[in-house]
């Protein structure tokens, strides 16, 4: 990211400034090579649309979502309270994140523990930037491409947001094909509830294979996702069918960032 500098909250606070929005990068967005590309895409869009933003950088820590959903409430609340102390210390009021798990946890589970913020998923931020005219999107390379969107559980069923990611990518003049199991009936990628970090229980198929099969049956050019876990699971699924050269798995932010010429 040579073309602009990412500011941390510590730097901003030292300069006596306050961001419009805090970009909560998340663990996958910080450390996973594939997800880092999504993080950069989000940062690029934020920078070029003139949104004043900052990240916590080394002060960020896991929200505790995987611990909580695996039953470790102690560890979750430890993480939550430490994060809340940092966020409140910087007087954070608005947070955007590209991870539906972070989004859900900070938005819904932090308030009771003392963390009250306006939390949005990056699909919602992109939509508001488009709606307000700050972000102008045209088809670009994606024009006419066949795309299917895989709903993240914690964005869709978990928080009733089905439209924002769809309306954002539809600005690319794509052909959006829905899987039979979509929106409220969407099938999980298989990574939630701590599954990302363990082998699946004994069964006759992996969940991401079941889901990827469904997506591939539509012959898409791109499987669009909005969650780092879904990204991993669907990418692995596509590789399993040796389709990685013809079918790409992309986060909606990457698609938007690629289509606009800043």
């Amino acid at each position: 990211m040579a073309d602009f500098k990412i500011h941390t909250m510590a730097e901003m606070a030292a300069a006596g400034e306050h961001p419009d929005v805090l970009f909560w990068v998340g663990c996958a967005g910080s450390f996973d090579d594939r997800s880092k590309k999504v993080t950069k895409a989000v940062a690029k869009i934020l920078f070029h649309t003139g949104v004043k933003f900052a990240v916590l950088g080394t002060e960020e820590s896991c929200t505790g979502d995987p611990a909580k959903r695996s039953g470790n409430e102690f560890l979750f609340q430890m993480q939550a309270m430490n994060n809340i102390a940092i966020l409140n210390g910087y007087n954070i009021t608005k947070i955007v994140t590209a991870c539906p798990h972070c989004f859900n946890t900070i938005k819904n589970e932090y308030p009771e523990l003392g963390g009250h913020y306006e939390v949005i998923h990056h699909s919602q931020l992109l939509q508001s930037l488009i709606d307000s005219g700050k972000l102008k999107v045209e088809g670009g390379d994606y024009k006419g491409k066949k795309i299917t969107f895989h709903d993240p559980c914690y964005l869709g069923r978990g928080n009733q947001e089905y439209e924002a990611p769809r309306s954002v990518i539809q600005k690319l003049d794509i052909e959006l094909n829905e899987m039979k199991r979509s929106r409220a009936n969407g099938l999980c990628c298989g990574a939630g509830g701590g599954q990302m970090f363990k082998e699946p229980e004994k069964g006759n198929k992996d969940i991401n294979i079941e889901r990827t099969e469904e997506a591939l049956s539509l012959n898409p050019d791109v499987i669009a996702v909005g969650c780092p876990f879904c990204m991993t699971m669907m990418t692995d699924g596509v590789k399993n069918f040796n389709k990685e050269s013809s079918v790409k798995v992309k986060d909606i932010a990457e698609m938007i960032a690629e289509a606009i010429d800043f």
Partner: protein
Amino acid sequence: MLSSLLFLLLFGIAVYFFTKKIKEVNRNINLGRDVDLNDYQSKRWKTMAMVALGQSKMGTRPVAAFFHVLIYVGFIIINIEVLEIIIDGILGTHRILSFMGSFYNFLIGSFEILAVGVLAACFVFLSRRNIVKLKRFWMREMTSWPRSDANIILVVEILLMSAFLIMNATDHQLQLNGSQHYSNANGIIGSFPISSFLLPFISGISTDGLILLERSCWWFHIIGILAFLNYVPYSKHFHILLAFPNTYYSNLKPKGEFTNMQSVTNEVKLMLDPSSVPPPIEPNASPRRFGAKDVQDLTWKQLMDSYSCTECGRCTSVCPANITGKLLSPRKIMMDTRDRLEEVGKNIDKNGASNDDGKTLLNDYITPEELWACTSCNACVQACPVNIDPLSIIIDMRRYLVMEQSSAPAELNGMFTKIENNGAPWQFSPADRLNWAKEEN
């Protein structure tokens, strides 16, 4: 007169046993932990009206929804007729509500048409279960009793509706014959658009034979309904009553939001800030488990969920774990919870509240393998037509496994350790969190 007394006796017995069972169920549900769900009353009434009364979540499966509505509407409306049957039974009158005149005829006619709808739906449902053998009615947890339970309900409904129609036909014929007690100076009472097709089959029967047939159907219908009433609380059919309170007490928060355990909050606050004052300990409070090992560790709402389950299997049929052959079935979680709760209740009745029967919901009913297969995707919660939440039970049982037994799968323990040590579920240094900002694309 004798038959009126007999009717009253039967009615009294039926109400007595039904009330007794309902009290037992209520006691069992209240074995659960307390949770306050009396907020947002108007929103709750609205949810109940939409989901229970309006069946708003049934429509995702249009065939089942259509036939279910036939039975549902038929069941509710035809029960208005039961009111008349009961009054006639007590007073020895004949069609006492017929003073309503043409509106009465309209009602009786409508009941007959609805009865045909119920009959048709019952046959369709029987064939879906036993001939088409839809997968969700033949899964692992659908052992012989759950399958029989469903069939018993459908067959009884068919018999009740048949008795209702035959009763009307014989009553009609007796009116036509001008028989005493049945006939009326003002002509035929009631409108019989369906049962009149049965007249050719019974017109040859003597008046005594017709009265016998009419009385038999009348008694069969009323005894059948009273017996059915008492069967319901033992059956998956309990949903016809519990769907209403269960949807009223629905979770109104976003599905992604899990409860924050207050007991843990107290502990964590003490750890992070030793100067903080712990909440006062109530003198007689017994130490509580973290998470759920048995039914008493669940909330009363989770226990009510289990009684409300009609075992339709929509949850399991959309569960990603179950679809891919894992042991987990959200429906089984609910069935197990109810079975265990009934067992606990029986043990209390027999041996007193303090008796421990040595069994628990965990392990004796639900295994860790089932619990660890869940992706917490909320598909089961979304699918349930009466807003049951199997996921919350799964998470509460995971909490017990992790926080009381330290028996999470090894990889998850590894993930916990990494979060504790370096603030991420993977092994990366926190110092590297911002590296992405310095890398080239």
